[in-house]
Structure formats: C-alpha cells, structure tokens
C-alpha cells in the first residue's frame, strides 16, 4: 500500500481515458500528457495504459508501506526519496518505509508517477481516470488516503534514463485551421499565429484559457452546438481563446478557429499558468 501524506495541489488517478462515449456527453478524459503517462508505465514494466498518478504543479508526498518500483515523467520537478534527488524518466526502487516527496514543477505543469503493477481503482465505464468536468471516476487524492497497486505483469526494460526533452519554456504548437475559420477574418488567423499568448491562471483539465489580442469575428450570430475535438481552440464572445484539453465538454456553441495538431496535444497538456506560447499554422 502507498499512503498519501500530502496530496499536492491536484493529484488525480489517470489512465488513457474512456473513449467512445462522447455521444452521451462523456469526455474521453485520461492523462493530460498521454505520452508521459505511457513512458512512465513502460519504465516500470506496466502496460502503457495502466493507471498512474497525474500531479499538477505541486506534487504529492507518498509513503511506501511496501517495496515499490517507481518512475516519474512529464514536467520537470524535483523528486526526493528520503531526501535524495531521484532522476526523472527513469525507474527507481523505493523500499518499504521510504518517503517520496515531489516539489513544484520548474517546466511544464503535469508530472506522472507510475508504480509497478499500476494504481488500482474502481473503473467507471472502462477507465480509472478522474474526469473532473463530469465527476466520473475516482476523486482527487486526499491526505491520509491509501493507494493499492495491482499485480506486476510485464518485464521491466533494461534502460537507464529515457531520453526525453523537458517541456519547452515557450512552446510552439502547430495548429490546423478550422473547422470554423470562416467565422473569423484572415486577420484573426494571422493574429493567432503571430502573437505570443499567455496561459491564464483560470485553466484546468478541461481547458487552458489564453490571454492575448482579441481574435475578431466576422459573424456575430450564435453557432448551433456542435461536437468539439480534443485540442480545439474555441473562441467565446470575449475573443480570448480557450484550448480544450482532456476533460473538455463534448459539444459547444463557440466557433473553433483551429485545432492543435495531435502530435502537439501532449505539449498543450503541459501548458502552465503564466507561461507564454506561440502557434504555427500548418
């Protein structure tokens, strides 16, 4: 068992989500940075989609009651095991009685802690992910909570540290214009691509709100609600865009000017309040 000593700012259980239910209003949910979740799982010999912990900005403190094999990926974050700094993107053993303490991320927002065997939780519609928009899946971690892991299955790979770049200071996210670029003038797409945008503190697992120049619309009528894709850049009446992330509502009535390329969705999941970013049209 693993005892949660401190929960951190927001630590949830995440796997790769519950696809296939959007027509019922249920977001896919799952890890905000899927690549980092998969890597953490691979490093401890789990299936890529096993449930792990997703930490947000300030990580948790965990006390291991049994020996464990651990890997931490995603955002850059100091991780101390009984006071000793542990390498990220690498598996390490934690003996029974040891304390793992994560501090605050220095680049990126979301860190993943995978444990060999995977975190066990009650699956809801095939997934253990916490969907904070819908209130489906396990609740965020609280101090004093005990976590269980499942049986160990796969082989632990013989790699030291996986070579992955830390989240960029000012990421450049590729976007594909549309589906509603015609609700905006050409100038809006140009502004989107040429401006530097700041991530608002009013961001969460459903979306990252951006602060920057107003994106002018050429149509002022209301859009009939339509399905929205992960990574859609929705522009409400304020003209300030919102990037829709893992727990995004399945339909919406604001026009989507562009959608982030799937290869850059994980980087979008690492956007941190106060950070600057840019877009490139592709």
């Amino acid at each position: 068992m693993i005892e949660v000593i401190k929960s951190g700012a927001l630590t949830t259980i995440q796997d790769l989500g519950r696809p296939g239910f959007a027509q019922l209003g249920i977001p896919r949910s799952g890890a905000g940075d899927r690549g980092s979740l998969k890597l953490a799982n691979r490093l401890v010999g789990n299936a890529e989609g096993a449930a792990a912990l997703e930490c947000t900005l300030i990580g948790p403190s965990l006390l291991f009651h049994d020996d464990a094999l651990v890997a931490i990926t995603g955002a850059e974050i100091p991780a101390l095991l009984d006071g000793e700094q542990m390498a990220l993107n690498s598996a390490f053993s934690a003996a029974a009685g040891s304390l793992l303490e994560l501090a605050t991320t220095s680049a990126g927002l979301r860190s993943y802690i995978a444990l060999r065997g995977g975190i066990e939780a009650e699956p809801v519609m095939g997934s253990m992910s916490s969907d904070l928009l819908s209130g489906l899946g396990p609740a965020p971690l609280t101090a004093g909570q005990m976590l269980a892991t499942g049986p160990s299955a796969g082989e632990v790979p013989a790699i030291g540290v996986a070579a992955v770049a830390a989240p960029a200071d000012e990421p450049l996210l590729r976007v594909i214009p549309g589906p509603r670029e015609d609700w905006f003038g050409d100038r809006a797409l140009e502004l989107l691509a040429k401006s530097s945008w700041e991530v608002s503190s009013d961001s969460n697992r459903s979306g990252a709100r951006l602060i920057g120049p107003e994106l002018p619309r050429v149509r002022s009528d209301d859009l009939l609600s339509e399905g929205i894709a992960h990574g859609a850049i929705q522009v409400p009446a304020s003209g300030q865009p919102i990037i829709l992330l893992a727990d995004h509502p399945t339909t919406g009535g604001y026009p989507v000017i562009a959608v982030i390329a799937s290869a850059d969705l994980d980087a979008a999941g690492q956007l941190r309040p106060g950070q600057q970013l840019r877009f490139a049209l592709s």
Partner: protein
Amino acid sequence: MSNARSIRRAGDRSVLIELDGNEAVQRLAAGLEASRSEGLEEIVPGHETLLLVWSEAAPAVAEVEQLISGAERSAKAIAEPDRIALTVRYDGPDLEPIAAFCGLSTEQLVARHLACDYRVGFIGFSPGFAYLLGGDPALQPPRLAEPRTNVPAGALAIAGPYTAIYPRSSPGGWNLIGSCDEPIFSAEKNPPALLTAGTIVRLVAK
C-alpha cells in the same frame, strides 16, 4: 454524392460534417454506428453537425465522402427510434416569469409545453444532458443573464429552442420551469444515459 452540406477538417484526427437538419444527423449517426469503420473512435451528434473522431489520422475528405454515402444507404434500413414518456411537474422557480415573458398564463405555457413531440437532438454540456428539439416556437426564452451556481438534479428547463432535464446538480443558465424524478444518467447502468440522440420524448404532467 452524400447529403453532407460540407465536410470540414477539425484537426488531423477529426472531421465535422454539416447536414441539413437534425434528422439527417440522426440518420447518418445511426448509419455510421451500424457500419463502424476501423479506427473511428467517436461519433458526436450536434444540432446540425456530426463530428467524427479517429484514433489516428482522419481519412481524406474524398474517403469521408464515401463513408458517408455508404452509411446513408445502410441508414435506410434503420429501425424505428426509441420512444419514452417522462413524468414531469411544472413547479420550477422561473415558470411564472417565463410565462409572462412569452405572453401566456402559466396554464397556457404548461399546456403548450406538454403538447410538443420532442426528439433528443444531441447530448452535451454534461453526461446525459439531452437537448430536446421540437419545442413550441412561442416558448423560446433566452438563457438567464446570470447563470445559477447550482441547478438541482432533475430540473426541467428551457432555453432558446431547447428543453432539457438536468441529469445532476450543476451550474446552469437555463430557465427552470419544472422537475422530473426519473434518473437521467447513471454511470453504473448500461446504457448510462436514459435519453440518447434520436429518442422521441413525450412529457406527461404528474
């Protein structure tokens, strides 16, 4: 050629298909569901659109066009839609002001609201939140200027052309005209949502 008005890219894994009206959306959704092609992960109806999401790159527009034509052909054989009757009470806090807004007595509003044949157009906002189409054009109040921070589960609400029942307590900006005791969404049930797109809904006063 398919009946799609347009096929728009929505990123590299999705396309948004614009159709003429919600019934065309239901037909195409049902046809695509019946002949589910590989890698097609989500089929998401909107009011007059259908969003298709693939687990990998979306096919080229010409290929999507073929997929739609095929689904429209197979959709002709689709069974009758589900029908459901829901018992409701007209006891919402906005009943009187909304009746006044529409220039009706509350009795007239209730009678007109009950007289409609509703159809679930699409689901969104929260799990199981069904947008019922087919409402009386005289009953189309705008949303509240200030959304409520807490609308109770089961609230019967109207806004613009839509009627809905809040599946669980949540913030909400619609006008509350009544309530319904039927559980609308339960993750433990299969299917978890009582109302799915295309279902014909009749409201019955308690």
